[in-house]
């Protein structure tokens, strides 16, 4: 078969399809979005579940349900999405899997498009399950097969960790012959997914028992490599995932003089790491993300005296993604650099698009709250977070999906007035409903602005589960009908918009204001299709 040019995300999706997956479950989030988009685009996935979930928690739970029924399935999310899904994720380690279950998490070191750079491998360790970390697009593809097999062999979920530079980089991928889907098959043990304490205690002991097997799997994994003999044992090198590429890049394909261990499957391959530590005078640890391996090794070697270099001692900068230059410097090799950026070059931060409905909504909101000064608007995660930038300077917080509503509530409970939440329609669908219910329960004095551009904008325009139902959802949850206000955010409606905001700020209770106008990017795309 000819190689297909695929993003890491796409290679994983294609691998899962060829490995007989029956359902993908996900909520969009950079850099993971393209996994589902690929599944939605290709003909091969017809008849396989591939619609978006409300959020990452519902996605993981649905995937656990599909695994229960014996089918191969995958839930996909960005790193912070795993925080949302942490409850089902952690407990899935106890229930285990029936059909192959892969939880794919795409991390974003250097925070290209995220609010933090947490490293999902820690979640895998926390949950005590195997973790796979591909180093290239071909491994993304192959690990779908391998991950499902591993999951079914031990009846455990497997965490597959991607990072931005692999998710969003393209390279050639060779496919294998596709496998059929699993047949529908309930678990042999009908107590398996029953986490009552008495059963859960047994489950935990079983999971603990499996740890040695997981280590043995990592020690013999086809994705880990162990070059334990080399010319120069003054230094041993441990690379995880993508770091292995940067190491090879620095040596330009010539032989690396030091022993090298490449880790793409966890838990740590303890036997080989002991051998490496014993045979080398020092260790250098290169990992894309937080110092997970480094901390564990320093623990293992607590009795020892050999230096272990990595992110903890600053040999590699503590924050931010790796690149070939950082690796070269860590090895004491010459660094390369072109020329300094001329001083005249100015920053070009992302901005709301020209004609974006959010810009009109924000200009009117600014006018409506002017008399109270700044510091009253809690916002959320999406395109509208760019309302923080000048000329709007309209919002004062961005923490996690849904936090706008509940932070406004907490501030209102403390007596802050006005307390205003600004949340996108898709974000509201993801995590806004329960917060709104809290506000209604307490009759909190808040104004909740649901910016409805009728899409999930920041990730490129995906549909979402509450589309077309915002007013009826709010009314059903208990917002009074006369305090659900909808307008069309256009410059010409400025006075009307300001008046509506002011009226609802004046109302002592829960108000929902919905500025509704379609995303200009989606509109453009539709026009292109028609043209």
């Amino acid at each position: 078969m000819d190689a297909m040019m695929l993003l890491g995300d796409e290679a994983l999706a294609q691998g899962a399809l060829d490995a007989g997956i029956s359902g993908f479950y996900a909520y969009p989030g950079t850099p993971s979005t393209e996994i589902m988009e690929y599944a939605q685009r290709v003909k091969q996935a017809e008849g396989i579940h591939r619609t978006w979930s409300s959020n990452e928690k519902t996605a993981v739970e649905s995937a656990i349900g599909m695994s229960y029924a014996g089918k191969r399935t995958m839930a996909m999310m960005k790193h912070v999405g795993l925080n949302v899904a942490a409850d089902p994720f952690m407990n899935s380690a106890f229930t285990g899997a029936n059909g192959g279950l892969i939880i794919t998490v795409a991390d974003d070191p250097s925070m290209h498009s995220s609010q933090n750079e947490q490293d999902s491998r820690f979640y895998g360790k926390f949950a005590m399950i195997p973790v796979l970390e591909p180093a290239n697009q071909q491994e993304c593809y192959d690990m779908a097969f391998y991950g499902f097999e591993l999951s079914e062999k031990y009846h455990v979920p497997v965490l597959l960790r991607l990072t931005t530079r692999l998710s969003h980089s393209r390279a050639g991928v060779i496919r294998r012959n596709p496998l059929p889907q699993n047949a529908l098959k309930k678990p042999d043990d009908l107590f398996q997914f029953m986490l009552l304490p008495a059963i859960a205690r047994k489950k935990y002991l079983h999971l603990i028992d499996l740890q040695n097997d997981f280590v043995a799997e990592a020690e013999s994994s086809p994705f880990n490599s162990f070059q334990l003999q080399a010319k120069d044992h003054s230094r041993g090198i441990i690379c995880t995932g993508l770091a292995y590429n940067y190491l090879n890049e620095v040596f330009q394909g010539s032989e690396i003089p030091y022993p090298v261990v490449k880790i793409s499957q966890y838990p740590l391959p303890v036997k080989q790491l002991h051998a490496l530590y014993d045979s080398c005078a020092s260790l250098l640890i290169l990992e894309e993300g937080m110092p997970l391996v480094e901390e564990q090794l320093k623990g293992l070697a607590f009795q020892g005296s050999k230096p272990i270099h990595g992110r903890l001692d600053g040999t590699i900068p503590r924050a931010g993604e790796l690149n070939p230059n950082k690796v070269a410097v860590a090895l004491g090799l010459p660094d390369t650099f072109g020329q300094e950026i001329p001083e005249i070059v100015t920053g070009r931060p992302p901005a709301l698009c020209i004609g974006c409905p959010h810009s009109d909504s924000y200009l009117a909101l600014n006018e409506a709250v002017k008399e109270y000064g700044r510091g009253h608007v809690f916002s959320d995660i999406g395109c509208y977070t760019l309302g923080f930038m000048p000329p709007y300077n309209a919002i004062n917080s961005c923490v996690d999906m849904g936090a706008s509503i509940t932070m406004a509530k907490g501030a209102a409970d403390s007596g802050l007035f006005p307390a205003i939440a600004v949340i996108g329609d898709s974000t509201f669908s993801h995590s806004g409903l329960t917060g709104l219910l809290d506000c209604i329960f307490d009759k909190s004095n808040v104004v909740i602005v649901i910016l409805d551009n009728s899409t999930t904008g920041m990730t490129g325009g995906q549909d979402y589960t509450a589309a077309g139902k915002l007013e009826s959802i709010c009314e059903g949850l208990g917002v009074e009908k006369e305090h659900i206000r909808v307008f069309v955010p256009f410059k010409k409606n400025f006075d009307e918009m300001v008046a509506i905001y002011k009226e609802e700020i004046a109302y002592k209770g829960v108000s929902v204001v919905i500025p509704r106008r379609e995303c200009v990017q989606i509109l453009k795309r539709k026009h292109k299709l028609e043209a």
Partner: protein
Amino acid sequence: MKKDIILSGVGGQGILTIATILGTAALKRGMNLKQAEVHGMSQRGGDVQSHLRLSDEPIWSDLISLGGADMILSVEPMEALRYLPYLKSDGWIISNSTPFKNIPNYPDEEAVYAQIRKINNHVLLDADSIAKEIKASRSMNIVVLGAAISHLGFSAAEIEAAITEIFSRKGEAIVEANLKALQAGIAAGK
């Protein structure tokens, strides 16, 4: 052959199309390819870049090293300068001269051009105007590509084949417009 290329511009200006065309031409030669893209927040009018690596040998890193790029191919002049730390001492800058001003403090254009002209190997062309003249205003990016290909070791015929393959599903008129843009770019780049 081994070429490491930084493609740069502003979100929405079409650098990924350039990458796809060069990538397709490279694959037809049987070369290896890696192409790192930027998705997400910066696509909203922010600066974007793509690392395109083509080689007859296996390619390891998805990212180009600082000081390792053979070329900065930019559809916006100030954005070309942003990636100078990546450019080899004998590397090329091929850049559109039409600024994309979506920020209030865009520098003086002549000062930007002066910085680009300091690089020995540079081609600065008004790709927006060239594209408009030949009535292919949406193919500005292909004009810039045209000015670059001889410095990348590709023939016009190879790139034409790639353009035809990639745009064919959008209809003959679009293919023709892009082929014309390529030729105009090649002429301007000489």
